[in-house]
């Protein structure tokens, strides 16, 4: 967040006064109350002496909710013509696994591929997806799977339940020999959830 001269302060706990509003503007982990800048979480404050802001860079808490811009691992649980719903299980790069999962939606208008009449052509029920959160409008997580890295990372055969294998731009079941269409991520089959 900061780029200028940074000064690290002593550990603060919620309610601790760190400055007055004329000195520093509160950012992540701080708030202003009656002209006083106070901590709202536990952590080490970073004072940016150039931008005159104070924030907490790292915390012990692995607790965080998904935010726009985050890349997430999710599983589709309801798919219709125009919209697909997915359970957001984890934000990639952060340790917390959401239990219960958050709900995200993929709308057909968010797909850049022109010839998609139904979202069912590219995502099916139970598919594991790598998606990106584009907004939280109306307090709903809007997801997109546009881009080579995003899309289906794991899918099963609708008949036998075997994992589908990627062959060219299609997914094939080695047992039933059926070919399935998906918007496949470039990480299909070797995606590592970290």
């Amino acid at each position, binding site marked *: 967040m900061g780029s200028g001269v940074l000064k690290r302060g002593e550990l603060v706990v919620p309610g601790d006064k760190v400055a007055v509003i004329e000195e520093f503007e509160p950012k992540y982990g701080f708030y202003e109350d009656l002209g006083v800048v106070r901590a709202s979480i536990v952590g080490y404050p970073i004072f940016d002496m150039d931008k005159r802001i104070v924030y907490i860079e790292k915390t012990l808490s692995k607790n965080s909710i998904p935010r726009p811009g985050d890349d997430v691992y999710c599983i589709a649980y309801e798919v219709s013509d125009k919209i697909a719903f997915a359970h957001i299980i984890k934000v990639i790069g952060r340790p917390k696994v959401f239990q219960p999962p958050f709900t995200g939606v993929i709308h057909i208008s968010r797909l850049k591929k022109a010839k998609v009449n139904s979202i069912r052509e590219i995502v099916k029920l139970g598919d594991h997806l790598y998606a990106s959160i584009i907004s939280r409008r109306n*307090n709903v997580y809007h997801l997109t799977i546009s881009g080579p890295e995003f899309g289906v990372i794991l899918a099963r055969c609708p008949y036998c339940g075997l994992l589908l294998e990627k062959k060219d731009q299609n997914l094939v079941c080695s047992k039933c020999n059926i070919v399935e269409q998906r918007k496949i991520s470039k990480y299909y089959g070797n995606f590592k959830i970290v």
Partner: protein
Amino acid sequence: MSEFTRRDGRKPDELRPIKMKVGVLDKADGSAYVEQGGTKVLVAVYGPREVHPRHLGLPESAIVRCRYHMAPFSTKERKSPTPTRREIELSKVIKEALASTIMLDLYPRTTIDIFVEVLQADGGTRCAGITAASLALAHAGIPMIDLVSACAVGKWNGRIIVDLTGEEDEECEADMPVALMPSLERVTLIQLNGRLTPDEFLEAFNLAVKACKYIGELQKATLRSYYEKIKEEVLYEQ
């Protein structure tokens, strides 16, 4: 005037020995344990997480759900594990005492669940529950405007006393639990059972504020000592 002492030998303004710990449960997002004399309370915090059933969620803020429960082995006689009228009321009281400090508007359509489990009851369980829940919320990394510390005051044998034991609680003429934000000096809970004159009320309130500030210092020291032991590498970037 002879010095007034209580049944356990404490002075009227003396608290029972207090022990606090944070991070006692691995599975919870935040947890804390508080021992105040014979009262032992364990708290787990989960969230912010998606609300189920969904209709309970609020579009502009998170909701707080609290379950205060006394373990069947927490009292001298076995207590039925079914939530009693008192437990349901205390769940609401604790929830309201804490909700005013949490920055709920940061997490719309989510819930923060607080589970307060009384392991051993010897008076002041709601206050110990609030103190422990506040620590657990801080441990979970949930933004709060301040910690909350709580302590009960009461009138026993005509004198105002602080931090009543279970025995004193049963015999007292009045009992007043108070919860306070120690840094901002704002009251989040005040209840009064029994009767106090205006002067007695002021005396009791001032005693409660003093006790809450002392407990607040202990809470801060507990959080600091816990976090200072932790190495930089295990901290998470936000």
